[in-house]
């Protein structure tokens, strides 16, 4: 028998916001967040776009480092 649990919309919304916040704070990865929400990773990125969630600071720093390294790299 298939069980369905009726979860009120406001709780779903709260759960979603909580996960987005955890992602932005760098507590969980995008893959983990997508898994917790039960959606594909690409759909999670769409959510980030819609809600205008910034990339986690650690990731920003990592990208910055990558660009700087690339800049000094000789071809």
């Amino acid at each position: 028998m298939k069980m369905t649990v009726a979860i009120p919309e406001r709780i779903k919304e709260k759960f979603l916001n909580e996960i987005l916040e955890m992602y932005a704070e760098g507590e969980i990865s995008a893959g983990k967040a997508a898994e917790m929400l039960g959606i594909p990773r690409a759909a999670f990125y769409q959510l980030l776009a819609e809600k205008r969630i910034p990339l986690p600071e650690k990731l920003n720093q990592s990208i910055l480092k990558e660009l700087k390294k690339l800049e000094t790299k000789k071809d």
Partner: protein
Amino acid sequence: MLKNVYSQISITSSVFAEVVEKGWGLAGSIETERAMHEGWIKVLDVVDKWKAREMAVTRRIHLANAETVQLAREVKASILLADEKEVRELAAEFGLEVRGCLGLLAEAARRELISVKEAKRDAKRLIEEGYRISEEVLKEFYIMLGSEEGK
């Protein structure tokens, strides 16, 4: 564009499942499928599955992410393409060179595979599509492109 920057790309079957099977119709799914038909993206499996599992457990990271790093080590990849923090951190420990979306654009512009104008346009699109980098990072990206313009 990716095809012109790197001639051969390998992905794990977890990545294939995530992008193409589960993510069918979403960003990148059709492109990945096509690239596989054309043969420049290949699905490879990690040989040392235990090593990947061990890294995932001890670091509390996703198995798929650990597998990606392990595959890069096994095929001795020159570059590991990743925007996931877990992958980038682990890759750095093994001395693997990592490239994210923005770094990829910067490299393509640098090698003159795309114009500076195209690189800026694509970066703007990335931001709109959820890759919301900080002002600081965007500024650095523009500086890099600017130095290319002067050549």
